[in-house]
């Protein structure tokens, strides 16, 4: 009990000492909080997005096969399907017809997809929420498409996809095969790419090798690669943002280091007086420890709480302009929070410990010198 009471007294003294330099310490806490907030926001955002992609894309096609011509993705002949079907272990091969349409009226890019089993009525389309939001002619519910020969094809919006699925299909337009071919003069006997199902998922790499051997101008993409791409993309983005933030963090550390290592004359005199009054060296060190802890703990907690609110309640409002970029269609979605005690403790060790330790070292140097010398200096 005596130990607790001693520390409470030291903490009382430390807080009064901090309150005497209110302006300086409050600005330090503000900058510190902002740095923690930025790092935590990036960590929470990228981790949640990566987890979301991993969960959703578990149902992506097991394998896609593209054809490459002169290093670029090109239409694939339907006859390739017969060659692939002959490979042992392949359960089914289906063709996909899809492409992009740039709408000059609003500057949006749409993804057009043909799926006969879902939609086959000519003259109508099923659209994602992002498309529905961006179209100019909302009253008529019709979108004019400029075809390959310059004429216009008017397609009526029959249905809008649900808000829950926006992260997967905000810019998607489901169109009939006849309209798709009319729009782009798409040649018969070709598809955009092929989708494969196999009997045993363990055989996927072997089947992919066989495909590239039989059809050297193709590029198989495995589901595992799809998930890995997203993992890499978000890590890269997270990494890039952290590189940008590094400047802010370094500036903060210089500030903290300056404050922590270079004790002011006033602070040295304070230590001298305290020692003269009978404070032990350990008491002075405890005082400096509490000073560092008060500032860093306050900034840490305020920073991560604000970051959580920012990412999961305001849909990362501050990052939005950067994420939207030049997109006209942007999905309106809220990330499912994915945070763990591991993330919180990593942030704690990265932000709180260095500051607290850096505060003690110079105080130890000042506290071990004779009080008379310190006060006269």
């Amino acid at each position, binding site marked *: 009990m005596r130990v607790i009471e001693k520390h409470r007294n030291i903490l009382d003294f430390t807080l009064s000492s901090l309150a005497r330099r209110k302006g300086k310490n409050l600005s330090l806490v503000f900058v510190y909080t902002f740095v923690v907030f930025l790092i935590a926001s990036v960590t929470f955002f990228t981790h949640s997005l990566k987890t979301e992609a991993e969960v959703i894309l578990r149902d992506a096609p097991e394998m896609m096969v593209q054809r490459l011509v002169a290093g670029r993705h090109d239409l694939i002949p339907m006859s390739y399907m017969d060659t692939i079907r002959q490979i042992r272990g392949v359960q089914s091969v289906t063709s996909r017809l899809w492409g992009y349409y740039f709408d000059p009226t609003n500057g949006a890019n749409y993804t057009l997809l043909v799926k006969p089993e879902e939609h086959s009525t000519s003259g109508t389309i099923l659209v994602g929420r992002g498309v529905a939001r961006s179209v100019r002619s909302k009253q008529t519910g019709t979108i004019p498409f400029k075809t390959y020969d310059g004429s216009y094809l008017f397609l009526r919006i029959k249905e809008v996809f649900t808000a829950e*699925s926006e992260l997967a299909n905000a*810019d998607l337009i489901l169109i009939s095969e006849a309209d798709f071919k009319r729009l782009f003069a798409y040649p018969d006997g070709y598809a955009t790419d092929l989708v494969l199902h196999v009997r045993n998922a363990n055989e996927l790499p072997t089947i992919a090798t066989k495909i590239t051997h039989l059809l050297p101008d193709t590029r198989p993409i495995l589901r595992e690669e799809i998930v890995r791409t997203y993992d890499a993309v978000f890590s890269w983005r997270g990494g890039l943002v952290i590189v940008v933030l590094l400047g802010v963090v370094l500036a903060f550390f210089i500030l903290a280091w300056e404050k922590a290592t270079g004790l002011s004359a006033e602070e040295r005199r304070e230590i001298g007086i305290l020692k003269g009054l009978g404070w032990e060296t350990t008491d002075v060190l405890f005082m400096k420890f509490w000073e560092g802890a008060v500032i860093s703990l306050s900034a840490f907690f305020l920073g991560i709480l604000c970051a959580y609110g920012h990412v999961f309640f305001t849909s990362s409002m501050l990052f939005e302009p950067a994420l939207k970029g030049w997109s006209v269609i942007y999905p309106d979605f809220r990330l499912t*929070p994915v945070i763990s005690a591991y993330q919180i403790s990593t942030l704690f060790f990265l932000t709180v410990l260095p500051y607290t330790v850096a505060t003690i070292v110079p105080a130890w140097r000042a506290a071990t010198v004779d009080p008379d010398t310190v006060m006269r200096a």
Partner: protein
Amino acid sequence: MPSRMSTRFVIFLVTCVALVWGMLLHAHMSRSSTGHALQERREVIRRFQLSDLCLFTDARYIRHPVAADLHTPFQDYPLSMEHFPSGSLMPVPPHLRRGGGE
């Protein structure tokens, strides 16, 4: 209001720790409650045989990073921005900005 500053600071810390626990609890509960939305997204991916999330729509190698060509720059519509570092050094020409992309 407690008179001792240390008591006030301890109350502040305890409140913060409680809020962080609340944050972890909220994250856990949100995961359970958004299961339906997640299932719906998975269903859309499965039904339409999609390979990518619709996060960015300004360029096709960003819209479908999985199906994109390997390192082929300037492969999209004129207003698209490069995502390679050199792309950030070269802005969109003014005559293209007059289009609908602004």
